[in-house]
């Protein structure tokens, strides 16, 4: 770009691309500064898979209808009411017009398969997943003349009163600056900075795995918060699930998820149980296990199942550890064998009639007189070979972020920053205080990305 662009978009994921495309279509000259190298572009959006969408009738791949009220009620359930109703309803209402927009800009959805009403109704799945969405948006953006710099790490936004006057970044080993008319921040949360996580969580956070991109280090977020830009959310709040303990430190994504907990007992490193594994169906409970495991010594858990449960859950990326005896399994998993034997014996003795066992619904097959109890799917662990997985806390994203209004605009003190907007994970805390609803992150990113792009372009033009 010869002269300064009209708009700088910081970040290279879904929200950033929606903002850049919208702004470019409004006639603005847009520069995207993406800190990741090209193969890793797209932030956490690379790991996403669907978009939760309101609709009053069949829409694209979605069947039947999904009303604003139902959508909002679903959201309230998972966030325990910690939701900004005004912004949440804005995101929900706008989602309906987003889906056709996404298709027009290259996103392709999985056709709904027959007989899949429950989810083909609420969530539209990206064909090929989030990286294919990201690829499509980069193509579209390039066609609109949007310039993209990879490995361009923004270090500082110079704030003069209520105006951002300069964006500093490094690129190809050199410090550079640019002075755009408008700036959109869409650079995600800070979860990849484990020091920051540790400051919020305590030293236990050093043992957490980060499910997504290693590039969401919150550098821009920290820079803006230090300068008094409006903040929202609790730094200790993050979306965390229990994932395979053998997953890589970063970027393991979907394949490291384990779905076997309801059919297992889960013990800590002392081979003791610590929570009801059968409390509810797994999709409703998996998100709490991230915190449960985080509260155990060394932030690690061990799932133990026997042969009869092996095929009741989706396969995951690593094969289970396997042994013909419980003691053998304990040794392979570095658990105290006698303690594991005692825990399993105690659990088995507390199991009752298992004839009502049903793997996909709450079957009430529970233990008696055991603490903690297992209230569903409680079958004795008796049938060799025995299998085990280790569990660790996997952080998906953090909630601490930039506070925005319904135009996605950031504020300083009690007034808006005239040329600064935020979209995506970095402002999701403005809507969600805690909890998470599948596919809602992409809804926030798309809706607020488009709003930010439109507002930023209107200011620049």
């Amino acid at each position, binding site marked *: 770009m010869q002269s300064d662009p009209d708009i700088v978009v910081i970040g290279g994921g879904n929200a950033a691309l929606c903002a850049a495309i919208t702004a470019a279509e409004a006639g603005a000259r847009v520069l995207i500064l993406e800190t990741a190298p090209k193969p890793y572009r797209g932030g956490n959006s690379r790991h996403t898979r669907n978009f939760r969408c309101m609709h009053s009738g069949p829409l694209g791949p979605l069947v039947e209808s999904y009303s604003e009220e139902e959508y909002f009620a679903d959201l309230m359930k998972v966030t325990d009411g910690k939701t900004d109703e005004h912004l949440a309803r804005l995101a929900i209402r706008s989602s309906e017009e987003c889906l056709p927009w996404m298709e027009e800009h290259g996103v*392709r959805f999985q056709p709904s398969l027959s*007989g899949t009403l429950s989810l083909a109704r609420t969530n539209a799945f*990206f*064909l*090929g997943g989030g*990286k294919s969405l990201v690829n499509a948006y980069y*193509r579209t953006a390039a066609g609109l003349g949007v310039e993209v710099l990879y490995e361009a790490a923004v270090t500082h936004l110079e704030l003069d009163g209520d105006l951002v006057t300069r964006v500093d970044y490094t690129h190809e080993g050199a410090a550079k600056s640019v002075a755009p008319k408008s700036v959109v921040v869409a650079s995600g949360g800070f979860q990849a900075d484990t020091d920051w996580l540790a400051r919020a969580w305590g030293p236990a956070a050093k043992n957490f795995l980060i499910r997504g991109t290693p590039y969401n280090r919150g550098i821009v977020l920290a820079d803006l918060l230090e300068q008094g830009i409006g903040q929202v959310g609790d730094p200790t709040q993050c979306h965390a699930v229990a994932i395979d303990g053998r997953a890589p430190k970063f970027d393991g*994504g979907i*394949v490291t998820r384990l*779905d076997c907990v309801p059919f297992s007992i889960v013990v800590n490193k002392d081979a003791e149980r610590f929570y009801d594994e059968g409390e509810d169906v797994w999709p409703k409970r998996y998100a709490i296990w991230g915190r449960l495991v985080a509260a155990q010594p060394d932030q690690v858990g061990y799932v133990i199942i026997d042969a009869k449960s092996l095929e009741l859950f989706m396969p995951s990326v690593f094969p289970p550890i396997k042994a013909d005896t419980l003691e053998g399994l304990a040794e392979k998993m570095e658990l105290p064998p006698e303690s594991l034997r005692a825990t399993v014996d105690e659990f088995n003795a507390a199991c009752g009639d298992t004839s009502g066992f049903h793997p996909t619904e709450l079957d009430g097959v529970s233990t008696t007189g055991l603490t903690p109890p297992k209230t569903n799917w409680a079958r004795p662990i008796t049938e060799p070979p025995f299998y085990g997985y280790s569990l660790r806390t996997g952080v998906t994203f953090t909630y601490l972020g930039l506070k925005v209004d319904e135009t996605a605009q950031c504020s300083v003190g009690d007034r808006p920053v005239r040329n600064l907007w935020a979209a995506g994970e970095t402002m999701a805390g403005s809507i969600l205080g805690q909890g998470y609803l599948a596919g809602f992150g992409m809804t926030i990113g798309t809706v607020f990305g488009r709003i930010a792009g439109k507002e930023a372009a209107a200011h620049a033009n």
Partner: protein
Amino acid sequence: MQIDFLNEARRQAEICNACRYCEGYCSVFPALHRERAFSDGDLTQLANLCHNCRGCYYACQYTAPHEFDLNLPKILAEVRQESWKDHAWPRGFAELFDRSGVLLATGLVLGFALMFVLAQTLRPESGAGFYAYMSHNLMVAVFAPAFLLPLLAIAISLRGYWRTVGGGSLRLGDLWEATKSAGRMKNLTGGHGDGCNFEDEDRFSQARRHFHQAVLYGFLLCFGATSAGTLMHYLLGMEAPYGFFSLPKLLGVPGGILLCIGTAGLAWLKTKADRNLGAPKAWGGEMAFVLLLFFIGLSGLVLYAATGTTAVGWLLPLHLGAVLSFFLLTPYSKMAHGFYRMAALTREASVSRPAPVQALAADTERANRT
């Protein structure tokens, strides 16, 4: 089969099975997701179902530099190539696959030479058109076995393949499904109908699918022309040369043109595409095969245009030499892919009628994972 390839394919398939984002691209993924563990036969079948459209590679969040290092199109291409070698008949010819580029060139030279020699030394005393240069009976004596023996070899190979992948009794309905799929190149549509990723990284385009269809239908038209000529000769006593408004020419001319356009297009795309998403060792052989088909189409058309000129004297041996090479190498060159692909599609059709209940459970499971 090289164990390394199978083990690597197994490693990758297990990762894919834990993700399932690519479900809609092609037939490979529904087939893959039906399994929990992958036998060598399963992997061989998946490899032959894969049309190398590359959609899954560009959509994959786990490709290098990610430590999971997925490259499913490549490893399936390697397994596919190996599986053809494994099932080659006679066994001793298996290694020809690795050298098919060189082999095609050698075959061509020998084929040309043979044809020239036959044409010169055994020139008929009478005969019109081509038969002025080479008698009909001589052509038949050379080409009938050159056509039938490779067909026999392919048939034996396919029987072995069918056993490897655990195929049951062959049903016409499944064969029809496979034919429809291949006829539309359904597996190169990308699932969404925008085509596949090939010549320009993650951009979807119909170029490869359409060029391939030109080759497929061009080849079938040419084959139809030859068959029509054969029937006219033997059943109706109508001898070549035929006029333009005859079945052999009406089929053969458009067929030859389509074949030329399609093969030229495919060769051009092949130079644009990333070689590391296929079996690198097979690239040369595949390219040689595409160019051979182009040469057959072109020399056939030129030969027709040259009817009545003395150029036929050298054009005819060139054309026939190329056709002879093509026939003889069919079981040991890229041409084999068509037969294996049909077998794989037929096998897939026979097992891909999921019970509605299973589909429901699988989808609910998929949707609930974040």
